[in-house]
C-alpha cells in the first residue's frame, strides 16, 4: 500500500478579503511508496511548493490526502520539512537549531542531545556545532536544515527547493550528500525543485507539473542505478531524460 495517497487534490488561495480565489493546484493524483525518492519539477507558479505545503499540513486543500491511510489535518511528527536557509533560528547555534524539532516533540533532554549530535555528525558539521547560522556558509546552513528535519525522525522528508539559494557547485555537492544521507536513512523523500538535472539525479520518479492551472502533467520513472554519481549526468540515458523533461517544461513557457 502506498504511504502517501493524493487523490483529486485541489488547492486554492483566498485573497485576504475573501472575494476572489486563486487556484494553485487542480485535481492532482499521486501515490508514493515507502522509502521512495520523488522529485517535483515545474516552472514557477505551477503550484509545486503549494502541493508540498499541503502534504506538510500547512495549507488547506480539497480532495483526499492521506499518509499511512490517515487524512492530513495539520503538521505531524510523521513529516518534517527542509526549508530554505532563512528558516534557521539565528539566535540558536547549530546544535540548538537541530534540537528544535525534538524539543517540540517533548523528548527527554538526554535523548535530544544525543540525537542532535548524531545528525550533526552525519551532515559533517561536528566542528561547527557551537556556531551561529550567521557564521556559516549557505551550504553549511542547508546541512543544518537537513539535520534538523532528520533529527525529528519523520517517516517522510519534505524538501522545498532546499538548495535553491546555493551556487551551482555547492548545489551539486549537496545533492550528492543528500543522497548519501538518504541511502543511510531510507526515509520517503519528496523534493521540490525547478532544476531539471537535480530532479533527475536525485529521484526514483520525477513528477512534472505545469501551470495555468497548476497540475500534474506526468510522472516519469528514473531507472538509473542507485549509487548515483556525478559522472552519470554525462551518460546517454541521463541526457535522454533531460531532453524529455525540458521539452515538457518548454510547452508551458511557449
Amino acid at each position, binding site marked *: 500500500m502506498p504511504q502517501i495517497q493524493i487523490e483529486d487534490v485541489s488547492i486554492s488561495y483566498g485573497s485576504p478579503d475573501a472575494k476572489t480565489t486563486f487556484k494553485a493546484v487542480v485535481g492532482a493524483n499521486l501515490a508514493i511508496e515507502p522509502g521512495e525518492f520523488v522529485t517535483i519539477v515545474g516552472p514557477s507558479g505551477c503550484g509545486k511548493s503549494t502541493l508540498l505545503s499541503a502534504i*506538510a499540513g500547512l495549507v488547506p486543500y480539497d480532495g483526499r490526502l492521506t499518509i499511512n491511510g490517515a487524512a492530513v489535518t495539520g503538521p505531524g511528527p510523521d513529516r518534517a*520539512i527542509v526549508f530554505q536557509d532563512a528558516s534557521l533560528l539565528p539566535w540558536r547555534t547549530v546544535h540548538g537549531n537541530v534540537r*528544535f524539532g525534538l524539543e517540540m516533540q517533548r523528548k527527554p533532554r538526554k535523548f535530544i542531545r544525543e540525537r542532535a549530535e548524531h545528525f550533526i555528525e552525519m551532515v559533517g558539521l561536528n566542528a561547527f556545532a557551537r556556531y551561529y547560522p550567521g557564521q556559516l556558509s549557505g551550504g553549511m546552513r542547508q546541512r543544518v536544515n537537513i539535520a534538523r528535519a532528520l533529527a525529528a525522525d519523520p517517516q517522510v522528508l519534505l524538501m522545498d527547493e532546499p538548495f535553491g539559494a546555493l551556487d551551482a557547485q555547492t548545489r551539486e555537492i549537496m545533492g550528492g550528500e543528500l543522497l548519501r544521507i538518504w541511502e543511510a536513512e531510507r526515509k520517503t523523500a519528496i523534493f521540490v525543485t525547478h532544476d531539471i538535472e537535480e530532479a533527475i539525479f536525485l529521484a526514483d520518479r520525477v513528477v512534472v507539473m505545469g501551470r495555468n492551472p497548476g497540475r500534474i502533467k506526468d510522472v516519469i520513472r528514473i531507472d538509473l542505478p542507485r549509487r548515483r554519481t556525478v559522472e552519470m549526468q554525462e551518460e546517454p540515458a541521463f541526457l535522454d531524460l533531460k531532453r524529455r523533461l525540458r521539452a515538457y517544461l518548454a510547452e508551458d513557457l511557449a
Partner: protein
Amino acid sequence: MTLRRSSWALGLVSFVGLLAIWQAAVSAGLIGAYYVSSPIAVGEAFVAMLREGTIQRHFTASAISFLIAFAIATSAGVALGMAAGMFRTVERTLDPFVWFLYSTPAIALYPLFVAWLGFGRPTSVATAVMFALTPIYANTLTGVKNVSPQLMRMAHSFGARPMDLFVRIALPASVPLIVGGMQLGVGRALAGVLVAELFGANAGLGFSIAYNAQYMRTTKMMVFILLVIVCGLVLTRAMAAVSAMSDRWRT
C-alpha cells in the same frame, strides 16, 4: 553608532581641560564661586559627604526608586508589547492610551500623582514608570510584529504549540529590540525619578540638588549634579554592553 568610537583619550583630555578651565576661571576671579563653586571645593565636599554617609544615603534612595520603576516599566512594557504583538485586538485596544502617553510629557501628570500618592517614593516611581513605559512597549511591539513569518511557519511545521511560538520564537526574536527599548527607558526612568525628587521628596539625588539649592549651597548642589551626570553615563554604558551581548549572534 560610530560616535562611540571617539577615543577615551580625547574624552579624558576634554574632561581634564574642562576642570582646569573651571578652576582657573574661579581662581582668577572671573566668575564668583557662589555661582559655580570650583572643582577643588566640589571634590572636598564630595569626600566630606562620603565620610558622613550623606552621599550613600541619597544615592541608595534614588537607586531603589529607579530600580523599582525600571523593573515595573520593563515588565509591563514587555508584557503589553508581547500581547499587542500577538493579538491585534489588544494592540488596537491599547492604541489610544499609548498615543496619549506618547504625546503627553509625563511630567504633566506629576501633580496628579502627588494628589493620589503624596510626596515620596510612590510618586517618584509612578512618574518614572510613566516616563519609561512607552519606548519599551513600542519596541517590544515592533519586535514581535516583525518576527519572520518563515520562522513561525517552520516552528508550526514541527508541531509548535502557541506557547512554543511565543517562548521559543517571538520572544527570542524580539530580544534585540526589547533591549533597545530598555536602553531608551533607562535614561527616561532616571529622568523621571530625579525630576520627581526635585519637586518633592525627602531623600534622593534629585531632592539633594533642590534642597541644597534652596540654601544656596552651590558646592553641594554641584556634587549631586555631577553625580547624576556620572550615573547617567554609567547606566548608558551598561545598557550598551547588555545590548551587545543580546546581539552576539548577529555577525
